[in-house]
């Protein structure tokens, strides 16, 4: 999760994934590790409890490249992942002020 240089930020196109998971101690490690092991930098992460508390929703901002569809299919195979969807970057744009301070 290295910070990218501003110039690089502009060059790279981004994707935000919304991932619904069953909540337990290892699930973040399963999901995020899948990206890091494939040398794919996770630029932003948000995780919140969802619904009955046995589920969580994770948002990940990653580089959008031709390998991303294959990565998404690998994420979908994780036992604790219920669904993966691409969504707009709005959620991280609204949070970007937190990192500035």
């Amino acid at each position, binding site marked *: 999760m290295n910070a990218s240089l501003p110039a690089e930020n502009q060059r790279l196109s981004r994707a935000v994934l919304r991932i619904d998971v069953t909540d337990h101690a*290892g699930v973040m*490690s*399963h999901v995020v*590790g899948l990206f890091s*092991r494939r040398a794919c930098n996770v630029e932003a992460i948000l995780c919140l409890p969802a619904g009955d508390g046995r589920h969580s929703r994770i948002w990940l901002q990653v580089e959008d490249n031709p390998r991303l569809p*294959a990565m998404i*299919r690998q994420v979908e*195979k994780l*036992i604790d992942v219920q669904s993966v969807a691409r969504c707009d970057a709005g959620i991280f744009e609204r949070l970007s002020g937190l990192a500035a301070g």
Partner: protein
Amino acid sequence: MNETLTGAQITVRLLERQGIRTVAGIPGGAILPIYDALGQSTAIRHVLARHEQGAGFMAQGMARATGETAVCLASSGPGATNLLTAIADAKLDSIPLVAITGQVPQAMIGTDAFQEVDTYGLSIPITKHNFLVSSAEELLEVIPRAFAIAASGRPGPVLVDIPKDVQTQAIEIAGWPEPGKAAPTPAAEPASIAAAAAMIDAAERPILYLGGGVVHSGAAPLAVDLAEKAGLPTVMTLMALGAMPVDHPLSLGMLGMHGARHTNLALDECDLLIAVGARFDDRATGKVAAFCPQAKIIHIDIDPAELDKIKAAHVGIVADVGQALAELLPAVATRARPAWTARIAALQAAFPPALPGCDDPRSHFGLIRAVAACLDRDAVVATDVGQHQMWVAQAYPLRRPRQWLTSGGLGTMGFGVPAAIGAALAEPDRTVVCFTGDGSILMNIQELATAAEESVNLKIVLMDNASLGLVHQQQTLFYGERLFASQFRRTPDFVAVARGFGISAVDLDQAANPCAALIDAISRPGPCLIHASIDVEQKVYPMVPPGAANRDMIGA
């Protein structure tokens, strides 16, 4: 009636309810409660390995020979880390395994306790799924789920890490969960089956490309039926050998890096490639851009992540390959394809498979053929990893799915002997032969003690060239003959070593009649080591140089 049981007793009872009858492992402090409960089980036989990696490969041998999920056990810390290679090997070859490890008590997790390691974290990338169990109650859900996950869809290894306090926690059991089993598989889309059938009917030069998934799904007979009905010449990956008998008229044998030249050249000319349970591994495809360059591709696999991973498919079918083949079979036309068959026959005539010395039992190919002549299709053939593995893949007449046990994806030296022990434990009526090399056998030689203790019907054929043969070969061919760290300056007396472990042994080098010595050694029940020196200068040919296209093979 409610019973009060400990987590350890629950674990053992759940294994019994899964139908597990043999487990391999090594005890240690953090798994002693489970071993205490296991010792009371009359249903489960525990085989004591001499290294946890050996236990992991024994479980793999059981699973590969039978297709059923198998179990290995290890303690925390070094016990768990020693298992990891065998688990990673199972992941890459899609072998259903449940590994159970002891862990330090929950209160001590994260304190650098004695023999504590983050087994859960270490096993994430090499398992299909893993669990760290936090209560005895949870075992009732986790253990059946572990078996269900291991066997469902594309099979794979599952690790269950159980802290010692969970093993000793006693709870009241009101009822038992159903044993975990493979989930039903999704059906293929009828439109895709129809599209695939139309492509097969329209093709002039099709090739059927079978992978390990065909063996895993029990679909080998259906694949042979499809090949025969639609007139499809058939290639197999290393993992699929045996799916179609090698002497079947449509069999082109193994493709790829060490496949026959005519096989790779036929692929180069095909206009349709029907990939079934295969993943376009780099050892099979060579340079991907040049693999089957003129072909349309039908790809059938149970794992959606395999489609379009390496090669984009014109028709991709996500389904159990057995179900998909059963649907495809009535949909395709009966065809003979005389022009394509004649072209393949011409390629075979121009580039006949080269097995030099196959009549001389003192040569590498001759030894393999002489061993095969002592056995029938009921035998199980395991290998280690290296030159001997490729020679056996090229020369052994494999005729039955699950006859062939080899470490394909991970290529783990040390796989052979313990995997062969596992196969012999699971199928005691079969003769198991393990081809190995002098490099590989030393990586799990301690399991000779297990083989002796269990009196398994295992014949180890040690092809000794006093070197790391494939490294020697690559250094000779691609590194200017600068041989470094690939030759053993001193080698053990393997016959004496085997006898020291309590296993009978024969040295074919000293035998006046090597064939007679071989027949004598193989026909005697129980474990036996057969030592044979081979020429270090022999290469595995033909060979696709690393990174080259399959059409550009060298040698033979």
